[in-house]
């Protein structure tokens, strides 16, 4: 009897190991190894059990140890003045995508208890996620922050169906930074690139490329944000009444013509990936200009020998007015896992710090000095920390300038399909800029294709 039992156990163990073995055997191609590779070196957040925390503790998901996390630490410190025993457990995630994946996981399972009390979330994604997972986040509309003091454009992301959800953290205001030494070499000054039309800009770009071999602008063409920023500076959205709309506005067509010309005359470098964009084009010193959300500044500052050679200004536009845009950035949201007294604590904490309460200036000042996080909160922009000149940018008080830029950004229609459209617009740009000019579609056709593909997906998803 005993023997039989032992052999049964062995058989069981064998089948178990055989099954495990099956999982790792491979043909040629897709294995389980794919998901273990990419993010292993980065920290991976553990699921949080919000119910096991003390009453005076909050947990939060956030990414980027050099940026968002110092900002949260600053907020914790500021709030401890009001509530000395308060503790904030910051759970670092590998990137913003990991937070999104965790929301998907909890949302599809219908179990929000694995989420922390607060999550940081990408501004461009929040609309789509609140539409599709309506009860993941709690509205904070009933708590009045001093919302008037914030950039209205920033708040437009976190306001969904007139309800307000998020507390803004950073500022996505777009800067156009130029290398003044290179401009000078080509006979230009910063005034020559401020408040100009894109056609004038193309001339400058051509001269710079011919004289120095450098590009006046570069962008990651696997996630090209240029059209979004350029169109926002015109006050135009790529969406109209909830649908992708690229063909009905001549200005959109003109912007894409600018991109095409810029690529052809050597003003624009399109990179294959984000890392090519940051590591090769910017840090590899291939460019004389950078246009992106101001969070790109730490990337630029890594090239120490270029310190003092950069200056920032606004975007060119089609008409020659100074252009203002915003790209990227994130806000803090209270999740459904945060209940009862905890929810009150979370609201109070966020209101006091990021939401414009008594600790806001202190929080934002520390966030700037520790992590380079620039606020959209107008009073913070007036503090001493913000008005300091920055050596890297010829002692320009760039932080103050950026907060000011942020207040000028026009609100444009946002959509759940922001990233879908961006992918399809990328395809359009790639086709419009391919080497063999005879194969290029017309701008109109390329835009029509991108519009149709996006709208087809919208319709199919809505079936």
């Amino acid at each position, binding site marked *: 009897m005993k023997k039989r039992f032992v052999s049964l156990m062995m058989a069981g163990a064998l089948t178990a190991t055989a099954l495990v073995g099956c999982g790792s055997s491979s043909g040629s191609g897709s294995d389980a190894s794919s998901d273990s590779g990419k993010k292993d070196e980065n920290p991976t957040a553990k699921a949080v059990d919000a119910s096991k925390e003390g009453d005076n503790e909050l947990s939060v998901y956030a990414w980027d140890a050099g940026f968002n996390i110092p900002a949260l630490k600053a907020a914790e410190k500021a709030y401890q003045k009001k509530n000395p025993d308060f503790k904030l457990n910051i759970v670092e995630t590998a990137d913003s995508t990991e937070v999104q994946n965790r929301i998907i996981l909890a949302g599809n399972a219908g179990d929000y208890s694995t989420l922390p009390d607060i999550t940081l979330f990408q501004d461009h*994604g929040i609309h789509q996620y609140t539409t599709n997972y309506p009860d993941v986040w709690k509205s904070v509309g009933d708590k009045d922050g001093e919302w008037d003091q914030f950039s209205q454009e920033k708040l437009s992301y976190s306001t969904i169906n007139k309800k307000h959800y998020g507390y803004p953290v950073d500022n996505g205001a777009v800067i156009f930074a130029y290398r003044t030494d290179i401009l000078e070499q080509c006979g230009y000054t910063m005034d020559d690139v401020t408040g100009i039309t894109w056609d004038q800009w193309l001339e400058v770009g051509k001269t710079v490329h011919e004289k120095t071999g450098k590009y006046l602008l570069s962008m990651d063409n696997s996630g090209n944000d240029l059209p979004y920023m350029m169109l926002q500076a015109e006050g135009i959205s790529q969406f109209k009444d909830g649908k992708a709309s690229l063909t009905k506005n001549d200005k959109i067509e003109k912007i894409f013509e600018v991109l095409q010309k810029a690529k052809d005359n050597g003003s624009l470098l399109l990179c294959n990936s984000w890392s090519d964009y940051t590591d090769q084009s910017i840090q590899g010193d291939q460019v004389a200009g950078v246009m992106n959300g101001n969070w790109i500044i730490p990337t630029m500052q890594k090239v120490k020998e270029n310190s003092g050679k950069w200056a920032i200004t606004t975007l060119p536009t089609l008409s020659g007015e100074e252009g203002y845009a915003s790209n990227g950035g994130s806000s803090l949201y209270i999740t459904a896992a945060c209940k009862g007294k905890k929810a009150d604590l979370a609201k109070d904490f966020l209101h006091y710090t990021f939401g414009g309460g008594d600790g806001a200036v202190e929080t934002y000042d520390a966030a700037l000095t520790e992590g380079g996080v620039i606020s959209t909160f107008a009073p913070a922009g007036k503090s001493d920390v913000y008005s300091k000149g920055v050596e890297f940018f010829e002692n320009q008080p760039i932080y103050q300038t950026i907060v000011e830029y942020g207040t000028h950004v026009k609100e444009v229609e946002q959509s759940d399909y922001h990233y879908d459209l961006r992918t399809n617009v990328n395809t359009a740009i790639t086709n419009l800029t391919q080497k063999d000019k005879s194969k290029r579609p017309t701008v109109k056709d390329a835009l029509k294709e991108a519009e149709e593909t996006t709208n087809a997906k919208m319709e199919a998803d809505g079936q």
Partner: protein
Amino acid sequence: MNNMGINIQKKQQRAGWFFLAPAALLIFVMNFYPMFQAFMMSLKTGVGKNMHFTTVPFFNYTRMFSDKIFKQSIGNTFFYLIIQVPVMLILAILLAQILNNKDLKFRGLFRTMVFLPCATSLVSYSLIFKSLFATRGLMNEIFIKLGIFKDYYNFLGDPWSAKIIIIIALLWRWTGYNMVFYLAGLQNIEYSVYEAAKIDGANGWKTFWHITVPLLKPTIIMTFIMSINGTLQLFDESVNLTNGGPANTSITMSHYIYNNSFSGTNVPNFGYASAMSFFVFILVGILAFINLKVGDSRD
């Protein structure tokens, strides 16, 4: 006393079922049940939490044929399949033939070297190829120093060269793997058969074509099915080497399915993604069936 009624055969049968049961149960719970669930899911639509059955039955299945990106991904996958699999298998069989030569010195060393790429992880080798062929990567530098290129060439930024580089990467990674199967197959062929052929005056090509290939047929069919299956599910290279780009010109079916379910930038549409997975499943089934039929020597 009841036991006397059961004869030995029945007893053995019962033991057989007993041994089979745990494995069968586990396979059922972990494989077949999820497959059934995936099929049910493929009939639903809606993103995020709002999943519901489609009003038009099999809507997801008709949707994929009007989805331009999915059609492109099918085209890309078959491009890889048609170019890469034959080239790889021919290379593998030739290498196996060379490395099976008894008089070759350092045979073990060469075999190890050819097989070694298979020991690298798919992600890491994709990333290495990515940096090799980057615009300022090693390959560009070499070509420029040798005077073949005048200017840096953006390999991964051009639709054609991006696909070719994926194929080169695949060849590097998988040729050795298939070679090992052929080597094993070759060891099973009696050397006396070759000697007899030699006496009959057959040259190297003839012995290869008339002896090696027919005797290796089962192995060839197996490697074919495995390679087709693997290529149809190609994922890591597309994601890590080119990220499907430029403009989705190198995206594979699995990569597109992944983008629809786990990309993170978008809320997933699991229903549509499972429908596409079933399409890939059916394709693999059909191709494997054709392969088996073509290779079947019985009448």
